[in-house]
């Protein structure tokens, strides 16, 4: 079992930042399982969650190299911290009229939802940790998965601790 590390990075929201980060991962041959970027509570700051394959990649180097990107403000490894870790997946599954009820029951058990129903297919929308999504996928696979889209993991530490601008202290050695 490979050891995944979840890194949360705050970046200045400027053109080309994502490009810089992706280029860095490629040229340093860092193994990345997923990478997501999105907006935050501040318009000038973006937030990136990177899931690093810690088995084949030196996570310490990833963090240090990320800090060398001028627009990177803060990087935290939240792997060991109690965190809410979640991703969203849209799964288009083959569903004949007679199968709809079965699938709907599964959806119910997983506390996810049916986002769309068509004549011979349904779209299931699920949010949660990787395990939950994988388990649901395993159960849906026998019906036939026609298409899937996943957002990649995002994470936030629980409780009062925050990754905010005022915390953006000097990069320690």
């Amino acid at each position, binding site marked *: 079992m490979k050891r995944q590390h979840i890194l949360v990075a705050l970046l200045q929201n400027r053109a080309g930042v994502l490009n810089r980060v992706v280029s860095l991962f490629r040229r340093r041959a860092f193994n990345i399982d997923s990478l997501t970027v999105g907006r935050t509570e501040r318009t000038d700051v973006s937030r990136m969650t990177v899931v690093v394959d810690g088995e084949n990649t030196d996570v*310490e180097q990833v963090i240090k190299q990320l800090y060398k990107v001028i627009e990177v403000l803060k990087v935290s490894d939240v792997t060991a911290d109690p965190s809410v870790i979640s991703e969203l997946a849209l799964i288009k599954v083959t569903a004949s009229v007679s199968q709809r009820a079965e699938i709907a029951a599964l959806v119910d058990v997983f506390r996810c939802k049916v986002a769309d129903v068509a004549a011979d297919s349904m779209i299931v929308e699920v949010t949660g940790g990787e395990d939950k999504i994988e388990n649901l996928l395993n159960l849906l696979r026998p019906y036939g998965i026609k298409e899937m889209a996943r957002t990649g993991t995002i994470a936030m530490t629980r409780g009062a601790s925050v990754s905010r601008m005022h915390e953006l202290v000097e*990069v320690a*050695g």
Partner: protein
Amino acid sequence: MKINGAHIVCKSLVQLGVDTIFGIPGGTVLDLYDVLPQYPQINHILVRHEQAAAFAADAYSRASGRVGVALVTSGPGATNTVTGIANAMMDSSGFVVLTGNQTQAMMGHDAFQECDITGVTLPITKHNYLVEDVRGIAPTMKEAFHIAGTGRRGPVLIDIPKNLFGEETNFVWPDKVDLPGYKPTRIGHARQIRQAAEVINGAQRPVILAGHGVIYSQAYQQLLAFAEKANIPVINTFLGLSSFPASHPLFYGMVGMHGMAYANFAVTNCDVLIGIGMRFDDRVTQYLPAFAPHAKIVHIDIDPAEIGKNVKTFTPIVGDVAPVLESLTEQVEKACHCEWTGQIDRWRREHPLTAPTPTTPLTTPWLIKLLSDVTRGDASVSTDVGQHQMWAGQYYWFNRPNALFSAGGLGAMGFGLPAAIGVAAARPGEDSWAILGDGGFMMTMQELATLAETQLPVKILLINNNSLGMVHQWQNIIYKNNIVHSDFKRHPDFVKLGEAFGIPTWRATNPDEYECALRKAAEAPGPAMIEAVTLASENVYPMVRRGRGIAEMIEA
């Protein structure tokens, strides 16, 4: 009063104290060149190829301690600087490349001489910018120079679309830069420094491995004081040469693939290795498991990402070398380490460098040794890449701080001549020596024209072995003497070539001719060139083969 972008670039350069730029005009920067003569405080050196502008600006930065500037046009002008940028990135040299680009309306339409140069240079710059608004020019210039010249230095590129040079706005020079994500650590952590001092105080066989970072930090006095207080032998990485006087009794030469045997033995057998402003590059360490296997490693570097990247560090200190060494020197105890230095002295007697001798045909070690002697180790020396570069590291005894300018990390042939021009521009009134091989010289020899025009006192020692010498050496040693395309079957007449460019040139084929040519070159008021003819069959020793530890050398 509103002024246009071209004036804003020039005014920004003036604000930044830039007095020299290296460049070539072209379509997209013509607005800028149009107003450049209105700023006589900026001396523009017209080079003959953009790669030379980048190399010269890089070397200018290294020699002056300031931020050099290259100015080129879009498309091919910009892409021609790429090797120079990659070279500066590898050697942590901070200079700024200003490129023009197509007008914003044309960008993305594959317009004439359009190139996504920020995309191209993204992985080889410390940072780069595509300016999108005329109001962004001044703050970008300020930021770029700050980033290039602080922390671990590196090249920064600013791409400016042509139309912005013509658009107008008020010139507002920002008082400070706002870079919340960029705060280089200068002062080392007190606890780490204390721990390092303890490790060093407990050492029986310590070695200092001093690199390029000592020079960038201008920490020559600090290194001297530190080494002398605890009497620790000093060994240099190739680019660290000239950070410590070669004539000092504690100096034991250069480490690595072509390092001195005694230096490699010292590093292999030390119990504490103090790496200062260096990055444990593969040409230094060679086979990692055999590198300083008994040593606790203390690693001082300004870039946290270098700590633990290649070797396991016992005590890391992130910070600028000068202040870190000051604190460390206070805390290390006086020591002798006499038995240890005695041991290295014995190694030096038993495994000396091959003695350079005046012979016909000439040999490069003697050529460089004589240059070192007649200039008393006091010259600024730029080199190209290859055998002569390693011999310069072995046989030029640098007594002056910051005197070696070479393409260490990227190993970019063609660096030497443009670099010597950059050094000459940074050190007015001084001779700037260029030690070149015939292969590298021919990659940027068009810059002889720049030299002839500027009359900068660059003195070229062209060592002509009619061969790509280091390739020849590898083919000789590693590829069972299968010499493939490394020997030149036909060369130009370099004396005629030099004269054609207007550079006084002498050929030397024996020691007398060489001594005479050296004297004439030094006496020439402007540039001069010596072609010294040697044999391709000479190899650089010691040599550590790939996959071997540095103590496992071919010694001759």
